[in-house]
């Protein structure tokens, strides 16, 4: 609890392994309500693995974890994994339009939990596409294939789809590595807007991106969280020398 409110997502002493290789070492983090938590660090530092622990997709990839992950105070091990994945939405690095229409892409997850009412689905599709800043570009061709959109549009479609389950936490894993700078800036603006309603974990390899929109930022190196602080503080006055070297471009 922070100031009497429930912490949306909390990680404590989390360890994770692929086979015998340990990829997370005693990671502790918390995402506060209505904030963007940036996670930065060089490749191979465990950022993606940490995300897969949040919605329990690590087990699908053949990994194993120990430690505590809580969603609104409840251990994620006690939540049905599919329900958990609807509450903790995930946007992956490469845009994926599912091989169906734009409309069906966004309506897919709601339909799978039994929403059949057309008007209800129409509302969800319009709301999510609008939130993802894609509605105006596609509203006249919702029946076109999602896979035929441009990369930047597909990533916004991916984001709209992630929002269709009305998640409490939205996680993004280096969402901008395959898309153009203009779309990147548009999605950043979307995230700043979205955090009024939900909490966001933004894993990024772009230091400037974390600096632009993250409220707090954590620096991960070799499976551990080295330092976590309000973003400006982490970039301007890092406590750890390794953080200092990384944010100043001396390695990574």
């Amino acid at each position, binding site marked *: 609890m922070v100031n009497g409110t429930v912490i949306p997502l909390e990680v404590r002493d989390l360890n994770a392994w692929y086979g015998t290789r340990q990829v997370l070492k005693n990671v502790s983090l918390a995402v506060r309500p209505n904030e963007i938590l940036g996670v930065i660090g060089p490749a191979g530092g465990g950022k993606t693995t940490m995300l897969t622990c949040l*919605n329990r*997709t690590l087990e*699908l990839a053949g990994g194993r974890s120990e430690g505590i992950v809580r969603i609104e105070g409840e251990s994620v091990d006690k939540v049905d*994994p*599919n*329900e*958990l*994945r*609807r509450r903790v*939405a*995930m946007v*992956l690095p*490469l845009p*994926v*339009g*599912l*091989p*169906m229409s734009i409309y069906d892409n966004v309506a*897919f*997850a709601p339909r*799978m*939990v039994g929403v059949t009412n057309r008007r209800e689905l129409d509302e969800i599709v319009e709301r999510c596409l609008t939130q993802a800043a894609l509605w105006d570009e596609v509203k006249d061709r919702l029946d076109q*294939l999602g*896979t035929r959109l441009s990369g930047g549009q597909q990533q916004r479609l*991916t984001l709209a*789809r*992630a929002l*269709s*389950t009305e998640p409490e936490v939205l996680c993004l894993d280096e969402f901008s590595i395959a898309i153009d700078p203009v779309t990147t800036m548009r999605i950043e603006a979307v995230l700043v807007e979205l955090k009024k309603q939900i909490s966001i974990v933004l894993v990024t390899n772009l230091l400037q991106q974390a600096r632009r929109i993250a409220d707090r930022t954590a620096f991960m190196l070799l499976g551990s969280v080295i330092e976590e602080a309000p973003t400006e503080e982490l970039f301007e006055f890092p406590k750890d020398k390794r953080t200092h070297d990384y944010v100043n471009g001396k390695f990574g």
Partner: protein
Amino acid sequence: MNGTDVRTAEQATAASPSPTTVAFADLASRRRTESLAGLVLLGAAALAAIPALAIVGLLIVRGAPALSLEFLFGMPLHGMTAGGIFPAIVGTLWLVGVSLAFAVPVGVLAGIYLSEYAGEGRVARIVDLAIVNLAAVPSIVHALFGLGAFVLFMRLGTSILAGGLTLGVMTLPVIITSTKAALQSVPHSFRLASWNLGVSRWQTIRHIVLPNALPGILTGIILQVSRAAGETAPILFTGAAFYLPILPDDVRMQSMALSMHVYALVTQIPDVPLEMKYGSALVLVGTVVLLNSFATVLRYYLRRNRKW
């Protein structure tokens, strides 16, 4: 550049023709090799096509005169030396139908299991190995297996059911393998995106993977249909009758079959007019070619509708 480098370069020039000349000579010889390779490959391809064309050509020339409505839809007469081959055509359809009714559900479900659930473990590898080996079993061995398992042990007798099941077992490995391959050609990123939306494994298979793998699965099945229609050995002891001029109406009956009929006409009965032998073979090959063409067209049409 330092002194050592210059000397090495000079020595190289003195010892061999200029690099430009070498490059041109090289290019000419490479061109010769290239055209030679083209010729050899063309020859091999032609050699492969010639027997196929010769067989079809011979069958058409010798067999086409026998084709008539009476031949296709009539009953055999005078100990099969006259009349039609209708019971054999219908019998083949029955046998293929039964084999599909068994092999398609079992094969597709097994393919789904192997592709989507089994993972990479030791059990999956053993099952895979078993299937590959099953595919390599000669059809006469399948026939003996069918005789032992279906005709005798399960007491089905020599019947369409026993013959169809034997054909089904024979086609099963390829249906499993082609189903698995079709499912694995659907990008993993689609599954991952679906799982990340909280969509269950089965729902993901049902709504994302299967619909997009369907063309490949169907093609595999149709190719096995034509194989089942053409094989003689598996039905020899299990379901095919030598001469039974009635139309079957029950899977417990025996029936004639096209492949068996051709075998019988050619080797077992004297005084069959030559064009009847060729005509029966032409109908059999025609059926197989028709099914394969259908598979090709279907694959082309469904590929055009690919969604990614």
